[in-house]
């Protein structure tokens, strides 16, 4: 009798540990429409591998996603490097970062229309410029840092600044000539151009940033140590699995890796520089 009770209890605790409903938050690295199906697949893979049900939550901007992470309303989240800088310490832990072209890093590209006469960042002065999200590293921080280095603010430097909310949209706007230039994520840019060769002919990269650590997948406080370990394991070995490899390929990622301690240093210093000069 007591044996059955013990067994039942252990079963319960086991399921409690492993069968809780988890959520994967996705903020718009690629525009939600484009990546919806892809991220569903990704989540479903992780869920299967962990043996625990997992939902996907899409959020239109990084700030909203950060709020979910801070409040512990999401378990794991794919966020932007820049967004991470706005998260309070201790509210998150970095699970892994994607490796692209053999590097666990990515860049910000300043792009312009191939047919226009805007060939350098300086040419963009007084022009229409598109950024993605105020919390974005590649889509906001980097171009702002460039402008701050020249002693100006983006609103002064550029003719007008628009916020598209996604790298995809920024690329589209530049490609159609609606704006003169934009700052976009290199992973997204390269993936888009790979998918659509015609697109590559309409835009050109006029400036590249130094390498930043690629957009991480973080875990919120709700994820316990065991879950954290297991999830990290799944991510790190994803490329060894044929199914996992396939999904990674679609995302334009080779594999996941653990970043080193100083990986975010460059980004942090950029942010510090911008913040200080903004007060002036």
């Amino acid at each position, binding site marked *: 009798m007591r044996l059955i009770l013990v067994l039942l209890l252990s079963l319960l605790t086991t399921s409690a540990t492993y069968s809780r409903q988890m959520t994967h938050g996705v903020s718009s690295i690629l525009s939600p429409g484009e990546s919806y199906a892809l991220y569903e697949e990704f989540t479903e893979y992780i869920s299967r591998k962990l043996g625990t049900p997992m939902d996907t939550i899409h959020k239109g901007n990084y700030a909203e996603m950060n709020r979910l992470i801070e409040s512990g309303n999401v378990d794991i989240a794919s966020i932007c490097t820049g967004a991470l800088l706005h998260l309070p310490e201790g509210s998150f832990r970095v699970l892994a970062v994607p490796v692209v072209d053999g590097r666990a890093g990515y860049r910000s590209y300043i792009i312009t229309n191939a047919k226009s006469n805007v060939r350098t960042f300086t040419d963009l002065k007084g022009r229409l410029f598109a950024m993605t999200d105020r919390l974005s590293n590649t889509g906001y921080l980097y171009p702002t840092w460039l402008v701050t280095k020249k002693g100006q603010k983006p609103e002064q430097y550029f003719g007008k600044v*628009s916020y598209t909310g996604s790298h995809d949209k920024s690329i589209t706007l530049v490609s*159609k000539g*609606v704006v003169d230039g934009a700052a976009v994520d290199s992973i997204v840019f390269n993936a888009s151009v790979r998918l659509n060769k015609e697109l590559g002919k309409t835009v050109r990269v006029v400036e590249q940033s130094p390498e930043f650590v690629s957009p991480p997948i973080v875990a919120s406080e709700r994820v316990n140590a065991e879950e954290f370990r297991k999830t990290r394991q799944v991510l790190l070995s994803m490329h060894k699995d044929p199914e996992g490899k396939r999904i990674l390929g679609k995302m334009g990622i080779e594999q996941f890796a653990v970043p080193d301690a100083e990986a975010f240093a460059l980004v942090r210093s950029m942010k510090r520089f911008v913040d200080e000069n903004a007060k002036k």
Partner: protein
Amino acid sequence: MLLLVLGFGVVTMMFDITIVATAQNRFIDQTIEETVANQHVAIAHPMTEALVYDDIYTSYTLAETVTKNIPFISNVIILDAKKNVVTDSLVTRSLPEGMTTVAEGRQRTGSTDYFTFPLEQKLGWVIFVVDLNWKRETILSQIFQTVGVHLLFVILLIIPGIILAVYVTKPLSVLTEQLSNATLEKLPFTLELPEHTTTEVRKLAETLTAMAERLKQATDQLTEQEKQMAREEKLASIGMMAAGLAHEIRNPLMTINMLIHSAKQSFDVTLTEKDLAVMMHASDRVVSTLNDFLSLTRPIEQKPSVTSVQRIRNMLSGWAASTLEDKMQLHVQYDEDTTLILDEGRVMQVAHNLLINSADAGATECVLTIETQNDMLVMTFADNGKGVHPADAAQLFRPFFTTKAHGTGLGLSMSELIAQALGGSLTFVQQDTRGAQFVLSVRNLYEKDLDS
């Protein structure tokens, strides 16, 4: 016939084109206005939001979607509160050419219409650029379609029209032409029709040919009958003439015969002077009858001379007074005393004959009216005698025809011949009242001389 079809087709086509063009024009104008207004309503709110949040992507996409979906909207231009161009679907990034002010309402420049709407609380402006060429092209294509349909109809109608013309109209006109050429002499005729003739027209031709045959038969019959009648009449005339002649000759001869016979009977009765005179008179009569008869066959000589109406009147009045005495009064009337050149002797001959006839018919008065008409002398004799019975009127001028107890019946036939020889005629005019009227007309050679 073909022209009628074509004309009809063209007229209805013009009519239809006008209707189509007018209706389309109005319909399209209305549609454009409504569509633009609806599109604005659809995008106004999201557009306002996009402007407020500097979301150029949404602004652009909204504008582009409208332009892509509506064929006559060629561009949608978004402006901020300060009326600076934010973006437009064609990425021209500027106001349209020729647009100087941005104000709510409708502007037209050439073939473009601009509809400008302010957004909520003038947070921005939207300009819809309507390409009126689209309207023109749409109407034109509608017209072409209409024209096409009409042309198709015309062509479709032309085909039966041609068929009709070939099989009916042409054969009919050929038939009509041949019929108009056919004359009575050419009966019966055969009608030749073109190869492609419908059965109905052929039947018609056959019927007409049959009719022609029957007509020919009838006219042949008629001609035969006429010939027969003429022959009989001729025989009758000859018979009558022979009978008359025989009668005129037999009576005197019988007188002579009788006297000779009685003389032959008793030898002692010799023929007295009186008897001989009677016999002479009888034989004279035979001779003169035969002479008269022969003179009918001889050509009539005429000796024209200068005379006048008055002279003739005087001569006749004198003759009537002495010859007719109290039996009949002659009244002569005339307008002008014209000079005449004709054979007055012959004229007298005819006049005497007519006047004697009138007297013999019991007339007490005869009115003679003498006129000159152009180159003819016309003398009208009207008496108050017993007149001529209608049944006798036809035979009046036939030799040996007479209603008198004693008469050769050669007088009027001779008079008629004389009148004809003098270039005129002698006719009897039936009177409603009592009496007979004869009109003698002869040619007056005097006028003829004047002309030549």
